[in-house]
């Protein structure tokens, strides 16, 4: 079975983004990167699927050459090969253009099951997974917390605010992974050495114009200064009043 994990290199979550001079993009200077949190779950699930059903795991990303660092980690954990769709402009690419590039490559790779993170922690769109499945006409199961896969079918649990939904679907499919699906493994030292023999291929792709462009980027408004309502037990009624009538959270 050809298994693919689509992943994205994103700024580290503790980074405070600075808006660039153009007012439309994030200033990339001094920013450190990591693999998007949920994509680690996608890689882990891809490797587990290979361990259970056999096949080959490809890790695919659209991004800069520097993403090879994150892809090497995935190879060390047990993925077989890695592909970078090299995109100098990836920070500004919209979900549709990203999905089109990925979908084309997934067809070339003859993918049967594709894992992605539930959402990328930078743009917070949660759009590419569903987009890719739609473009390919495949099943799409999002926010999966439990998964059983067979050769042609699958059963997945999705956690919603109202409870757990269990769905059955046919392959090929795009599955987006949510927290709880698995506990990603650490790269082990033998795996790191084995990964030296595996390839990270950088390939060009047919550029698709964005349909959507960022017009303006603004930081969140500064938080209002706090207010001390009183001290000790005597302050409790004032606190309850503030929570109920000002903050309206009670």
């Amino acid at each position, binding site marked *: 079975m050809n298994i693919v994990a689509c992943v994205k290199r994103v700024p580290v979550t503790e980074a405070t983004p600075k808006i660039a001079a153009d007012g439309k993009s994030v200033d990339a200077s001094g920013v450190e990167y990591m693999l998007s949190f949920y994509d680690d779950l996608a890689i882990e699930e891809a490797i587990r699927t290979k361990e259970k059903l056999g096949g080959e795991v490809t890790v695919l990303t659209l991004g800069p050459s520097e993403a090879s660092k994150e892809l090497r980690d995935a190879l060390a954990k047990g993925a077989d090969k890695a592909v970078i769709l090299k995109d100098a402009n990836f920070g500004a690419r919209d979900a549709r253009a990203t999905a089109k590039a990925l979908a084309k490559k997934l067809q070339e790779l003859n993918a049967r099951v594709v894992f992605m993170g539930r959402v990328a922690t930078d743009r917070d769109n949660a759009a590419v997974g569903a987009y890719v499945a739609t473009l390919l006409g495949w099943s799409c199961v999002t926010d999966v917390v439990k998964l059983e896969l067979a050769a042609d079918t699958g059963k997945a649990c999705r956690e919603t605010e109202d409870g757990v939904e269990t769905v059955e679907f046919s392959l090929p499919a795009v599955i987006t992974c949510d927290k709880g699906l698995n506990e990603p493994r650490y790269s082990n030292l*033998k795996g790191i050495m084995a990964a030296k023999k595996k390839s990270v291929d950088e390939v060009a792709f047919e550029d698709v114009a964005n349909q959507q462009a960022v017009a303006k980027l603004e930081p969140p408004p500064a938080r209002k200064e706090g207010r001390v309502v009183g001290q000790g037990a005597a302050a409790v009624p004032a606190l309850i009043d503030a929570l109920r009538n000002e903050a309206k959270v009670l």
Partner: protein
Amino acid sequence: MSTYRPLDYMMLDDQFSEDERMVRDAVRQWVTERYLPLAMEHFEAGTFPMEFVPEIAELGMFGPTTPTEYGGAGLNNVAYGLICQELERGDSGLRSFVSVQGSLVMYPIYAYGSEEQRRKWLPLLASGKAIGCFGLTEPDFGSNPGGMLTTAKKVGNEWVINGRKMWITNGTVSDVAVVWARTEQGVRGFLVEKDRPGFSAPEQKHKFSLRASVTSELVLEDVKVPDANRLPKGEGLKAPLGCLTQARYGIAWGGVGAALACFDEALNYAKQRIVFDKPLAGFQIPQKKFADMATQITLAQLLALRLGRLKDEGKFTPAQVSLAKRNNVAIALDVARTCRDLLGANGISLEYQVGRHMCNLESVITYEGTHDIHTLAIGQEVTGLAAFR
């Protein structure tokens, strides 16, 4: 805990290969996520977290330079050094556990053992299914191991071993001990399994240092082992000393890790702690301390890296290891004491790492050749004259 950003003043990151960095980062992540949350608890309780042994093995940290055919990961020595650095950033007791298993048990079996001993023990030790310890030091012979009183006498096809070993890391939790004993032919090494009659390994308690590590006495009373348990290729005192050279190499890197941990914690603290209306780090006395520590840590990093490259080129000497171990542990202890001081009263709390590292390093500066003994080793190398006696 804020994100760990170890000092890299001279951009040494560039000097490591991609796989060396990956090894370092994998171990760093494991220490941060798995070990550190429990470090204080185990130090306080005086216990080693044995539950981590399968994880350490799964990551491949036991004897990682051992060839893959014997269950190792076939890493180079710089990568191994970085593992020691990251483990000791967690706790010297954690690094000691891994050092003993790799450098003092797997190494002598690989270097001095028979093919049968290698095939039997190395995969068990690499996978953490067996734990080992190394018995050289005795109650009355530390710096002068040549004075050892433990003996092994050949009776038929067996050896009968008698004696006591002291300050043995992992002794009580070991399945096998590499025991060095005097024979009629000179010093020899023996593999002694824990269930041999007459062998016991009581734990040494009441330590204020390396509390999250098991330290033991080994008692051998007419312990019989077959000749097949003798390490056939290790002859004379140079065999155990060869093991110590391996372990000291890891300690030279480990010292850097402990120093980096203390420096990082003290720097974060001093930037946040407000005294007289500004951060502690903004005053001249703390700045002098940070400048001195940054310089010393950087020198230690350079020394460890150069030593590692020499080892990988097959060119390093025991005298070079002495210099690196002596220097790097001394600066680590000095950094730990300075950082403890920078944290004020908080520095004596186990809620912070500096006090724990400081106490641990009192052992590290003593074991595997005391600071003073390494001084004499360097002195002998430089002058050509031995001043040991």
